[in-house]
């Protein structure tokens, strides 16, 4: 048991810095949790085997091992090298190949470059070659490669058997059945034939669909997306009176207003939004300019965290705030009243309904003034979950602010004329659908409840579906076709910018799946059904000319067809249409405790549920709540208290009898776990049960439900994770609805939350300043450094890396810098790291014991009052300290420095003492408590045991596939795995062959992608041959996190090169080290964040709250941004001493 970190005394008044509700309440329970050395508790071993068992087992193992050695001999097993009989042209074994492809999404496609290691796709990166591209992606693209190897994906052609369940069918038989559908309806023009599709932007798919429509003119087409962004098209088309859609250019914006639009995380196209937004957020001493972000929102989102001014209102009231802002802007916009008069009347009426508690006239006035002051450089974004009227107000504002052509433009977006799911259900119920073809969609899981989909689907004569999983919808189909993964498919797509991009396969379909294009072409009985040929035909007509072969090769090579991007069109807002629509808006009254507002939200991890079986995404902590493996029911503290569901153990005032009871409970259940209450939410006679999450910054009287969880047939990872929020969703109010009541179902429920780990009190971990201060004190970040010893910081021993920096033979010194001004916390880097570095998933139970394996985590801090906090994000991984505390305590030299400044891990030396982890001040080392790569997914995810997976089990007593584990091991020592064969065979394919897969008992941590470093150095040396040109040029080498970052917030490179990006960043005045006063000399430094609040706003403060907090905690007198100010802190650098000394 270590001593409790001597805490800095919190100021009696004023703001303070905290990471979670428990911490803010500072309960004794939380204290005791912090004081434990290992929150997870190493006595974990007691569930299953005792020490005696262990010794027994070990002696048995040694005996068997001995037999193995002397029975088989000392030689390594004989292995074979099997070269090709005929070598494929251009293939070099061991050299990864890169192919341009794209991940199709609802709103377009994310252009990618996929890496193939000897035929296996192992990693995807964004395509940086496309115009404006920077190689950044979102989390879904990064994780998509794991879905390719999902053992639960549809692996067969199946038809409904006599017993009503799906049974394997022959491929040819299945394909013939598709042709039969076409033949059946060829006579009557498709009467009775209906298609249910997802949104697509594939030119070839749309072409095939058009051919089908020609062939079956009476066939009907419906589209279903539970999280639909089509409102962007509908709203712009309505506002401008022609089929268009707005395309935003945030990099050109000086002021951005988000109306409940989480464009940095859950809005589609976040990777381009982040890219453009970040460009305007990197203030420097030479260019102290940046954009300003206003956010009006109900949920606490990453966009709200990035905001300079945030207004917290319930989702249903955003429209009223928007109306008030628009009213003010239109009044002074210079557009004649004859045009905007009607609209302004409607806006005034709408805005008047904003209740007095929520009305913040000064804020709204200030925001409107700022927008007006930046005419031509201002842009307004409305979230997809807001009603059409809010979108129209946003379009009107954008037009009035004159940003067309600068901050946004309009691109053509034709209406495909698809019906809705509700309309399809109606025609099903009317008995007018003979054959229903479902393409991808999973309505049995995610349809609104009032549609009553299962009953409707049963009315169809025949249901034929192509899907990636045999999921909820598949169960009631007559035919089910396995869908090919995009990395197995020939296809094409358009990005949101309209650029035509190829979808190129890297591997034959693993389970013979077919593409949607082929599926449709076969139904239509087209002359060509081969997707490759179909895509080429489309391409030929788009590219034209006689050089099609060359153009096609270039298309595949570059990953886009130049010149195909949308051409912007100019149009004026139709004021009358907007006015009519806004006048007809029916905005609800402000919610109260009795009339709660229930908000459904797209999940940042599993999307609408489609990624529920992706282990990497399940294990990714939510960027805001930091809860993994499930969704939560979020509400504000005030609301929870008013509803009587606030857990007493989170309350600073209720620490009496109740608390003791909880302590007992805790001792019983094992310490260090995060708990939440389970609550039941009843809405319209239906209910869901989920963990209550008290969310800082959430609007009062608003309850947030995340979609995408509670799947019943997702697979062995996703089943049982979370609750199904779709069960409460109505098609009339898919996003925001009123009503509902809550009750506590269970007092304590274990939850996997990485939020409250590693408390860092009162120290300037994330440093922030406001732009006005930054202009005056550009060195503010170093002003927060710990003080130096008199005469400078001297160490007993010289730093060997100082010497190495002078050594001309050591040409590289690696370093990294992260710009906290640009980082939004989207977590794409976390998944990129997981993918690149073979990081296993550990499951909810392990995560709840702080045993997650992510090498890179995003620390999310709140500062300020619980209700209105300021949020900051900080990617945290191994800092590669030059004076690394981990190295000095390792008894076996397993972690040492290399001469290029990397803190390296020699896994083979590691004996698992975990001393290094104890001594790491950044808590970034990860320990393999179990052989996670050899455990079955069911065991890890706990899908059999209600999420509480049993990861420890003794091979003496356990069985796998009905066979005693010890016997399995005896028969085949190489296969002593508890992972079923299909998982084993599939999941090993996703591993990066350049990175060791770590076993149980080994410590690991961020390596700065040492495999990429070595690869880059080797490539350079191979080119150099006998010359001395061995320095890796800047930009040739990117770490996985850096490459994935859409905001370009990470720079990595050679510090010996003064011109390298990282050197220039580190020379920036914002550069600082975390916990600098420990003198660990990290190679990873951060650029402090600059906020840009408007001094004229009512919520403006001179300093960010965290800076004020720092100043108060450390007794800084005067301006904390100013270095060397008089009279303060003679022991400023020893923040930890404060706790011991008390105040002074």
């Amino acid at each position: 048991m270590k001593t409790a970190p001597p805490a800095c005394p919190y100021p009696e008044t004023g703001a303070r810095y905290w990471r979670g509700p428990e911490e803010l309440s500072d309960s004794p329970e939380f204290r005791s949790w912090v004081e434990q050395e290992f929150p997870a508790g190493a006595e974990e071993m007691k569930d299953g085997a005792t020490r005696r068992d262990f010794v027994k087992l070990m002696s048995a193992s040694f005996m068997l091992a001995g037999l193995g050695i002397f029975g088989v001999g000392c030689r390594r097993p004989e292995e074979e090298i099997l070269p090709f009989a005929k070598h494929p042209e251009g293939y070099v074994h061991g050299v990864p190949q890169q192919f341009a492809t794209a991940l199709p999404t609802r709103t377009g496609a994310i252009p990618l470059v996929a890496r193939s290691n000897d035929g296996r796709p192992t990693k995807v990166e964004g395509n940086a070659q496309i115009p404006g591209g920077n190689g950044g992606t979102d989390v879904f693209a990064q994780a998509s490669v794991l879905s390719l190897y999902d053992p639960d994906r549809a692996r067969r052609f199946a038809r409904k058997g006599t017993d009503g369940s799906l049974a394997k069918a022959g491929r040819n038989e299945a394909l013939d059945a598709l042709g039969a559908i076409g033949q059946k309806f060829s006579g009557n023009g498709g009467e009775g034939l209906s298609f249910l599709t997802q949104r697509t932007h594939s030119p070839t798919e749309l072409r095939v669909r058009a051919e089908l429509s020609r062939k079956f003119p009476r066939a009907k087409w419906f589209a279903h997306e539970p999280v639909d962004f089509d409102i962007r098209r509908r709203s712009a088309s309505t506002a401008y009176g022609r089929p268009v859609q707005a395309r935003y250019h945030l990099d050109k914006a000086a002021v951005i207003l988000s109306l409940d639009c989480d464009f940095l995380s859950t809005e589609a196209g976040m990777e381009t939004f982040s890219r453009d937004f970040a460009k305007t957020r990197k203030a420097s001493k030479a260019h102290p300019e940046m954009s300003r972000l206003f956010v009006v929102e109900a949920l606490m989102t990453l966009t709200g965290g990035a905001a300079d001014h945030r207004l917290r209102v319930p989702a249903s009231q955003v429209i009223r705030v928007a109306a008030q802002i628009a009213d003010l802007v239109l009044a002074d916009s210079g557009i004649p009243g004859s045009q905007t008069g009607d609209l302004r009347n409607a806006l005034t009426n709408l805005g008047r309904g904003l209740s007095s508690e929520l009305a913040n006239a000064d804020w709204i006035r200030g925001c409107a003034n700022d927008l007006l002051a930046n005419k031509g450089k201002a842009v307004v974004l409305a979230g997809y979950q807001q009603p059409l009227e809010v979108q129209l107000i946003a379009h009107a504002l954008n037009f009035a602010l004159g940003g067309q052509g600068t901050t946004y433009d309009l691109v053509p977006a034709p209406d495909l004329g698809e019906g809705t799911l509700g309309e399809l259900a109606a025609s099903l119920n009317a008995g007018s659908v003979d054959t229903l073809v479902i393409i991808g969609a999973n309505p049995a899981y995610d349809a609104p409840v009032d549609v009553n989909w299962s009953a409707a689907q049963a009315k169809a004569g025949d249901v034929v579906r192509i899907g990636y999983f045999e999921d909820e919808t598949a169960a009631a189909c007559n035919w089910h076709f396995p869908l090919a993964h995009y990395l197995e498919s020939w296809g094409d797509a358009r990005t949101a910018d309209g650029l035509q991009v190829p979808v190129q396969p890297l591997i034959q379909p693993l389970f013979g799946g077919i593409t949607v294009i082929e599926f449709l072409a076969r139904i239509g009985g087209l002359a060509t059904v081969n997707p490759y040929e179909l895509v080429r035909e489309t391409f030929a007509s788009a590219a034209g000319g006689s050089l099609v072969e060359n153009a096609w090769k270039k298309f595949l090579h570059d990953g886009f067809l130049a010149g195909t991007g949308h051409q912007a069109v100019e149009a004026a807002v139709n004021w009358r249409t907007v006015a009519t629509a806004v006048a007809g808006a029916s905005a609800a009254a402000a919610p109260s405790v009795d009339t709660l507002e229930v908000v459904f939200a797209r999940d940042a991890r599993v999307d609408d549920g489609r990624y529920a079986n992706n282990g990497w995404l399940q294990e990714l902590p939510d960027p805001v709540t930091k809860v993994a493996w499930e969704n939560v029911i979020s509400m504000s503290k005030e609301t929870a208290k008013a509803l009587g569901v606030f857990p007493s153990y989170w309350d600073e005032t209720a620490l009496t009898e109740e608390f003791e009871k909880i302590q007992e409970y805790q001792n019983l259940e094992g310490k260090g776990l995060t708990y939440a209450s389970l609550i039941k939410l009843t809405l319209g006679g239906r209910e869901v049960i989920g963990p209550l999450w008290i969310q800082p910054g959430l609007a009062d009287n608003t309850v947030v439900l995340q979609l995408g969880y509670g799947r019943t047939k997702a697979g062995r990872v996703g089943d049982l994770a979370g609750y199904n929020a779709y069960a409460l969703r109505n098609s009339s109010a898919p996003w925001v609805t009123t009503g509902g009541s809550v009750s506590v179902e269970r007092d304590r429920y274990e939850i996997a939350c990485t939020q409250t780990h590693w408390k860092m009190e009162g120290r300037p971990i994330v440093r922030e300043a406001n732009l006005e201060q930054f202009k005056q004190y550009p060195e503010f970040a170093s002003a927060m450094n710990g003080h130096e010893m008199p005469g400078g910081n001297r160490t007993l021993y010289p730093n060997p890396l100082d010497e190495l920096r002078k050594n001309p033979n050591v040409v590289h010194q690696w370093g990294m810098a992260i710009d906290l001004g640009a980082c939004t916390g989207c977590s794409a880097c976390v998944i990129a790291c997981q993918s690149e570095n073979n990081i296993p998933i550990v499951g909810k139970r392990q995560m709840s014991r702080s045993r997650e394996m992510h090498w890179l985590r995003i620390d999310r801090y709140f500062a300020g009052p619980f209700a209105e906090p300021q949020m900051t994000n900080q990617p945290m991984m191994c800092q590669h300290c030059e004076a690394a505390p981990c190295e000095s305590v390792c008894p076996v030299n397993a972690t040492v420095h290399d001469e290029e400044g990397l803190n390296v891990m020699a896994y083979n030396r590691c004996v698992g003492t975990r001393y290094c982890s104890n001594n790491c001040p950044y808590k970034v080392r990860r320990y393999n408590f179990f052989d996670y790569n050899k455990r079955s997914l069911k065991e890890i995810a706990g899908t059999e045991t209600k999420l509480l997976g049993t990861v420890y089990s003794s091979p003496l007593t356990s069985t796998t596939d009905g066979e005693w584990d010890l016997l399995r091991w005896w028969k085949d020592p190489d296969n002593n795995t508890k992972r079923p064969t299909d998982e084993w065979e599939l999941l090993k394919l996703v591993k990066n062959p350049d990175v060791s897969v770590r076993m149980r008992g080994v410590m690991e941590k961020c390596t700065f992608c040492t495999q990429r470093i070595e690869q880059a150095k080797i490539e350079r040396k191979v080119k150099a041959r006998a010359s001395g040109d061995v320095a890796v040029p800047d930009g040739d080498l990117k770490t996985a996190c850096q490459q994935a970052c859409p905001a370009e917030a990470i720079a990595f490179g050679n510090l010996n090169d003064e011109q390298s990006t990282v050197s220039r960043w580190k020379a920036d005045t914002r550069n600082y080290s975390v916990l600098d006063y420990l003198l660990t000399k990290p190679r990873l430094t951060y650029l402090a964040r600059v906020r840009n609040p408007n001094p004229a706003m009512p919520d403006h403060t001179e300093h960010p709250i965290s800076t004020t907090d720092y100043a108060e905690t450390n007794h800084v007198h005067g301006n904390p941004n100013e270095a060397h100010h008089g009279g303060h802190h003679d022991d400023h650098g020893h923040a930890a001493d404060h706790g011991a000394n008390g105040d002074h």
Partner: protein
Amino acid sequence: MSDIFPKWTNRLPLYVILGGLLVGSAAIGGIWYYFTPKYTRVGYMPKQPVAFSHTIHAGELGIDCRYCHSHVEKSWFSNVPATGTCINCHGPNNGGILKDDPRLALVRQSAETGEPIPWKQVHKVPDYVYFNHSVHVNRGISCVECHGEVQKMDEVWHAKPLSMAFCLDCHRNPESKVRPLEEITNLEWSWSDDPKVAATKQKAFGKDFVEHAKIHASQNCSACHR
């Protein structure tokens, strides 16, 4: 008590200690010697499925190593040639050398059926070692340094231990091993037949090459272990 413990038992502790020392030393020495790659690997010569002779091909005919091991300069892996490479000379149409020889039956069969020839792996470093051929052969290290005089081997055998100590010997002292890049695959090459002259020349060349090419053979863990 002397009935129970005769006099010689007084010396028993000494015997035990001495005996223990002897047995212990023997065990340690045995493991030290017998469990190292030097003992376990050097001399390993599995019988290959095809009686391919490096003596004939590389030695007598003087075919360059890279004719067959064509990717050694591009990849971490030095490939064993595809059957197609053998057929270039031994095929029935092109070359036609020994086209009906029974020793080449498996090669012809492989070319016909597309089934690979199951060559036995001789040289192998453990999975946690990321050895890269290309960086060595492009920067002055000849094949012969690790593989021995393959041009004199009828059946390839494991000539060097390829242990970590073996790697480090050279990484600590690359001057003694680097050679002109045009002589990398010339396994017979030496500066001179006179060892003294050769040593002097090697010393001068090695120093110069290492300096000019900035050869800085890493001795850090991260060089090979990731």
